[in-house]
């Protein structure tokens, strides 16, 4: 259960609307289902009361929306940011992607968000409602008479289990208590793959990536993928493609996408959250992050505004690509 409530957030938003600090609120809007939460713009207390939700399914990272929405807003735009969202917020500022003056950021605490596919794995399909009750989620479904109680911690999203930080690195105002940067085990899975043989890894990724349907959800949700025109949509780029025509195209898209955000990805995990095929795309980004940390020293994108991303930086003593593999050949 989240420490901060929907009511507190609405109160804060209404107050900021009414005192003129902001003209609009970017928040989580009611969807068709309780777990189906949609980023929505609210302009009044009334709209908030009708449509604003805050529950264990509010994983969406709003930072990216600032690129398009902040410029259009008349006054300031209120945005609620969970700790991991603030890293994306800073990274986008570093890249001059929105006007800081147009945004009023309120940091909110986050206890981790639930993964609906994990819930469904327990409850089965046909979910009618999900309500938080203390540390549990109470799920009613069309097919079961009795509500099903699930411990929230058992259905936490992978990215929340391995949460890297409960600290907000950017905000105008903070609600609740500030947290700490955490020592997470987020690279364990990458390390596990690294320890495999090349053949095993190839088989693993072949299996994962072959499910890609090129819906572009990963790209569209990614707060680092904010290009005015994506190379994969651009007929003049030479690499335009719109369908996962074959194995090569699948790999090309995901390698290049991961490469384009390498050093800029804050590891928010949106790519994997939104993937309808449940491909662990965040592992590609984490591989780059892990490599960068190991090759060039610890670097957390978005930790500071105006930091220089590792791939647009260098030292004269950097290791050679050949040495990458010499440092303990783990993939014989």
């Amino acid at each position: 259960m989240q420490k901060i409530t929907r009511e507190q957030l609405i109160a804060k938003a209404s107050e900021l609307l009414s005192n003129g600090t902001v003209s609009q609120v970017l928040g989580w809007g009611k969807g068709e289902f309780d777990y189906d939460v949609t980023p929505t713009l609210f302009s009044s207390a009334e709209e908030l009361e009708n449509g604003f939700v805050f529950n264990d399914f509010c994983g969406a990272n709003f930072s990216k929306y600032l690129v398009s929405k902040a410029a259009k807003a008349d006054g300031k735009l209120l945005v609620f940011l969970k700790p991991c969202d603030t890293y994306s917020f800073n990274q986008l500022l570093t890249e001059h992607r929105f006007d800081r003056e147009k945004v009023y950021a309120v940091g909110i605490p986050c206890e981790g968000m639930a993964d609906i596919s994990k819930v469904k794995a327990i409850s089965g399909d046909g979910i009618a409602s999900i309500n938080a009750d203390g540390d549990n989620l109470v799920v009613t479904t069309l097919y079961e008479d009795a509500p099903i109680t699930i411990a929230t911690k058992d259905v936490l999203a992978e990215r929340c289990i391995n949460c890297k930080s409960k600290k907000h690195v950017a905000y105008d105002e903070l609600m609740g208590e500030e947290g700490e940067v955490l020592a997470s085990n987020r690279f364990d899975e990458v390390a596990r793959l690294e320890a495999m043989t090349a053949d095993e890894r190839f088989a693993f990724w072949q299996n994962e990536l072959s499910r890609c349907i090129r819906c572009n959800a990963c790209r569209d949700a990614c707060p680092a993928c904010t290009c005015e025109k994506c190379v994969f949509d651009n007929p003049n780029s030479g690499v335009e493609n719109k369908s996962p025509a074959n194995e090569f195209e699948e790999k090309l898209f995901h390698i290049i996408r991961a490469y384009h955000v390498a050093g800029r990805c804050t590891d928010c995990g949106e790519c994997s959250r939104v993937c309808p095929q449940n491909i662990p795309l965040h592992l590609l980004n984490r591989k780059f992050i892990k490599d960068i940390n190991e090759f060039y020293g610890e670097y957390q994108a978005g930790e500071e505004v105006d930091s220089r991303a590792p791939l647009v930086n260098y030292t004269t003593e950097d290791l050679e690509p050949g040495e990458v593999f010499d440092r303990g050949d783990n993939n014989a």
Partner: protein
Amino acid sequence: MQRVGVFVCWCGSNIAGTVDVKAVAEALKNEPGVVFSTDYQYMCSQAGQDMIINAVKEHNLTGIVVCSCSPRMHEATFRKTAAAAGLNPYMVEIANIREQCSWVHKDMALGTEKAIILGKAAVAKVNLNAPLTPGQSPVTKRALVIGGGIAGIQTALDIADAGFEVDIVEKKPTIGGKMAQLDKTFPTLDCAACILTPKMVDVAQNDKIRIFSYSEVAEVKGFVGNFDVTIKKNARYVKEDICTGCGACVEKCPMKKNPNEFNLGMDNRPAIYIPFAQAVPKVATIDPNACNMLKNGKCGVCARICTAGAIDYTQKDEYIEEKYGAIVVATGFNPISMDKFDEFAYNQSKDVITSLEFERLTNAAGPTAGHLERPSDGRSPKTIVFVQCVGSRCDACAEKGKEYCSKICCMYTAKHAMLVRDKYPETEVYVFYIDVRTPGKNFDEFYRRAVEEYGVKYVKGMVGKVVPEGDKLKVQASDLLANKQLHIDADLVVLAAAIEPDKSARPLATMLTASMDTNDFFTEAHPKLRPVESPTAGVFLSGACQGPKDIPETVSQASAAAAKVIGLLAKDKLTGNPCIAHSDELMCNGCSSCANVCPYGAITYEDKEFRMPDRTTKVRRVASVNPAVCQGCGACTVACPSGAMDLKGFANLQIMAEVDAICK
């Protein structure tokens, strides 16, 4: 699609010997866009070029592919040919079927096959070529000389003589450099000061030359013809334009005991000082680490004594920005530290000195007024041992010293030895040498005179250990010709320390983006044919910053560098390279990734208004490339995630077309 003509060169048998040129020409006929294909013995000959010109006209060609030698050889030639045929010179692509095909492959079939593929790649590329026009940039008609030693002085004088303005930046309080510290010069034995100081005065009086002394280069931006340089003028706490150099302050300063750099610490100077009598500018400088007023706010004697009112304790470092068309590096050299060679006891005895210290000891303006006295007790030495090659010619695995020959030591040691024997004939002088290297006009004759006329004892061998004991220096050495170990009780030991580039050279090279060798000597653009130019356009090399040199060589190189600078400054416009980056602002995110990797600072950003599809307008930050500054490396194109940044002449689509053609 272009109308492409393909011209396959035989290069005599150089290509035709391993590549079936007819088959290549034939095969390329079928490539998209190719409307004409032929072969010829020597495409670069006048007849070959005429053939291209005629074909362009006859077949209305819009693009040319020449399958020939390396583009590094004849790309420029064929671009001129294209221009002569009325085409844009950048509509030419070269397929390198000589250096990278016929010369490295022996098999005719394989060579021919590869030549065809290389030709296809060139055709694929030229189909995507667009006419390019090089930009032009103006030339700032002023030169900057960094370093005010004899090299910098000579370069500046020559440039000024041609009518151009020159600034000299010198980090010491005076120009003059190492030569000002020398006593006599070989092989003529004329006094260094007598030939140098008139030149220093010429510099001071030349209205085309400005001297920034006690200053250093803080930042260099821009490019050939258009350098923007920030010069840091260190606070000397004396107003240069008011100080008359009378020296009253120097006399009265109570803080007298500071090591005198000009005499290499062998005597002291006050906190306020003028390095030497003929200093240019002849202006006092306050050493902030020694001045009681600056350190503790107590004293102020110099300000009281100065009738001109030149002392200014509140002076701050000053930054001056200036534009230059050319930059000459003349940062010179220093003797290396003797710390790693303490078998010679340099750190243990004052009477073990370096050759440069010996220069000061024999210089009439030096700490002993030219009387040869031992630094420890002032006695005149009766036995002097000179050791050659200290730290020169060392193998890298010896982990000390330099691998190169320092070049000047043999001659100055012969000079020292000769001068000692001349002035103090009762002194015994030994010179331990490995080889005596005297290539130069009148050099060997000079060395022979030292031996034959002046009785200097040259010993083929090396000193192994110097042990200071009592008032003697016990020198243990080998005499290889006699197969003996010598034990000499010496009074003075003089070490011919290797020389190395000044420490300021390395950071300066980084600022200038000029390359250096592993020893920190500046690299010349070509070791034989372009010896006074750096590979970085607009940067020239003068004197020992490029390698060890004696005075005559330094002066010749200084004048040569000046000639190159004059040649550059005489131009009104420079033609640039059109193969540069450009940004498609519709796709640009304004994220700064490109600017982060640009080594030239060629990319700037502006906020631009864009009309959106819904008829609203949006202001976005977009990159723009300064065509005069961009050098066309392409680093930005890969840093750009959206592909907005591309490189003319080497565009994404062009390179991909080459890849496709090769892999087809």
